[in-house]
């Protein structure tokens, strides 16, 4: 009964004295000693997910809490495991491309390009100049749509709903462009080994140019709204810090690595698709917290717009497919009218394209980080091993390290800042 009385006193509305000062009723009646209500001192285990909007997919986190402080996080993954790598061993190289759509489904064109580049390196195929530039456009558009989803969902996790709407509006515009190019929005299957499934339609580059002109204004608006917002700064600054040495040791990649101050970008350090001939900067953070990851990704989107404009300016005329009958199908019209082309088409579709025995590891800078494609061939038309080096798998593995010692609500912010996509983590 005494406990109950103490509680009622504490919750009572304070009065005001004659001078207008608040008069608080004493918490403890005079003559008694203060009594702390008994709290259970045990650590508490809670389960977040796998069906929870803040885990960005079917991620399950088992969290050990001391009060509100995270003592330990145990991530559980695998709920979306589809066995893509196993399936790839039973598929021809071109048949694997639709599987790559479904790994990191938020940036499907970039995955398509990554796989095609690896297969082409394995087979020794040179792609055409127009194809090279179009693939750069595909990669940078992917970077932007992936970062847009990241910014929108992260802002929602931290409590800013507007950003989500603004970002998804821009994402829709990019998806309209991608749909006009490939016919699909999410699962694009854009590339083929040696080329692309389609050229861009007439007038497409003008639409892209127009979008590039308007898009940075949205980024500026979001920056204006968030970077002067005390709640946003308080929720992101010095939360989930990874130092440069830790980020390297944990094999982080992409914006996660660069936010920690390690200036490693595959586009700069192992250039592919002539990225070394484009003029762009690689943003690098200083402190490696959630805030720096935000800044790095926002700046990457602006740099992607710069690359897109340069790519549109230099886009050469010419064929999109390599002149290599080993991998490129004859045109449909010829296959339906000319016997030799028909046989060629039939054999290639039914038997696939054998790759010489050997192996290749091809890294590309995907929106989430370094996506590596490790292909091992024994000389047949199907790979012996198709390994995806999944960037967000490794980035997520550092979550326990980043979140321990922070509040439970910070765990949500940190998990959002990792930018995971479970399709790629579970594969």
């Amino acid at each position, binding site marked *: 009964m005494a406990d109950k009385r103490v509680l009622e006193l504490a919750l009572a509305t304070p009065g005001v004295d004659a001078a207008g000062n608040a008069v608080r009723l004493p918490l403890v009646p005079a003559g008694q000693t203060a009594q702390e209500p008994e709290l259970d001192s045990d650590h508490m285990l809670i389960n977040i997910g796998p069906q929870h909007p803040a885990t960005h997919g079917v991620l399950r986190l088992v969290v050990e809490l001391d009060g509100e402080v995270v003592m330990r996080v145990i991530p559980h993954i695998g709920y979306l495991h589809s066995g893509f790598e196993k399936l790839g061993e039973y598929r021809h190289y071109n048949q694997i491309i639709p599987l790559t759509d479904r790994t990191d489904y938020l940036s499907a064109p970039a995955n398509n390009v990554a796989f095609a580049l690896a297969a082409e390196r394995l087979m020794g195929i040179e792609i055409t100049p127009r194809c090279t530039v179009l693939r750069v456009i595909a990669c940078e558009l992917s970077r932007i749509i992936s970062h847009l989803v990241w910014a929108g969902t992260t802002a929602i996790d931290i409590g800013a709903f507007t950003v989500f709407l603004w970002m998804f509006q821009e994402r829709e515009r990019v998806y309209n462009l991608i749909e006009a190019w490939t016919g699909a929005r999410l699962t694009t299957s854009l590339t083929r080994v040696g080329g692309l499934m389609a050229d861009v339609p007439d007038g497409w580059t003008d639409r892209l140019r127009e979008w590039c002109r308007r898009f940075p204004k949205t980024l500026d608006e979001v920056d204006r709204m968030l970077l002067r917002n005390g709640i946003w700064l308080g929720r992101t600054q010095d939360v989930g810090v990874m130092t440069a040495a830790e980020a390297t040791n*944990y094999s982080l990649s992409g914006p996660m690595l660069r936010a920690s101050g390690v200036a490693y970008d595959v586009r700069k350090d192992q250039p592919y698709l002539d990225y070394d001939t484009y003029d762009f900067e690689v943003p690098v953070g200083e402190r490696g917290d959630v805030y720096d990851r935000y800044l790095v990704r926002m700046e990457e989107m602006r740099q992607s717009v710069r690359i897109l404009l340069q790519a549109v300016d230099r886009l050469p005329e010419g064929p999109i497919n390599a002149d290599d009958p080993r991998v490129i199908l004859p045109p449909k019209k010829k296959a339906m009218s000319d016997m030799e082309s028909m046989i060629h088409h039939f054999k290639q579709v039914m038997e696939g394209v054998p790759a010489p025995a050997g192996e290749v590891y091809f890294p590309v800078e995907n929106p989430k980080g370094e996506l590596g494609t490790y292909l091992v061939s024994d000389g047949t038309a199907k790979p012996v091993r198709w390994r995806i080096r999944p960037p967000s798998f490794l980035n997520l593995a550092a979550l326990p390290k980043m979140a321990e010692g922070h509040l439970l609500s910070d765990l949500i912010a940190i998990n959002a800042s990792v930018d995971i996509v479970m399709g790629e983590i579970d594969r």
Partner: protein
Amino acid sequence: MSGAATPNASVATLRARFGAAIGRSAVVSGATIVHVARERAHDILAWLRDDPDERYDYLVDVTAVEYRDPERPLEVVYQLRSIPRNAFLRLKINLDRSGPLEVDSVVDLWQGANWLEREAWDMFGVRFVGHPDHRRILMWETYDEGHPLRKDFPLRGRFSRAEQVRRALGADLSAHYSMDELSIADAYASLPADLRVGPRHPAPGAETSRP
């Protein structure tokens, strides 16, 4: 990463330092591959990470490869990168399929190896001796069809569809928790009886409801 055929200079240094522990090396598609002996692999990787002239500070990937040819050994593959020197090296350990599939864990060198090694264990059945958390990662802990990326594992799994369904329905859900989290199951048992629902809520049958 252009198709240069010159091998990475680290191979000659490794050979001078570790002698017989370094097997054959080759340049394939522009990348240098070097085979190392299983017993010395951890020493070699540690040296590559720490030597001031090598500085392979970034572990890109750990995975395994099994060839269709049953005579060829299973390979454990380490992809290493030196960020300061912008160098790349691929190390391989050959594991005879008749012997124990075991290598030393490198989690003490690179924390990034933690989940990568768990995945290689899960998918290929390679044991990483000294791993601090040697559990499956993509499949669940009680999965008993084997290791899916092995070549003798059928594409659709070892068990028939009916058997897979039977096992899924008969599974003890508490066994899906790892030892670390068994206290969750304890907390469940301490709930009042009317709050406990069986594994297959709604309408738990007597044979499947929790004790």
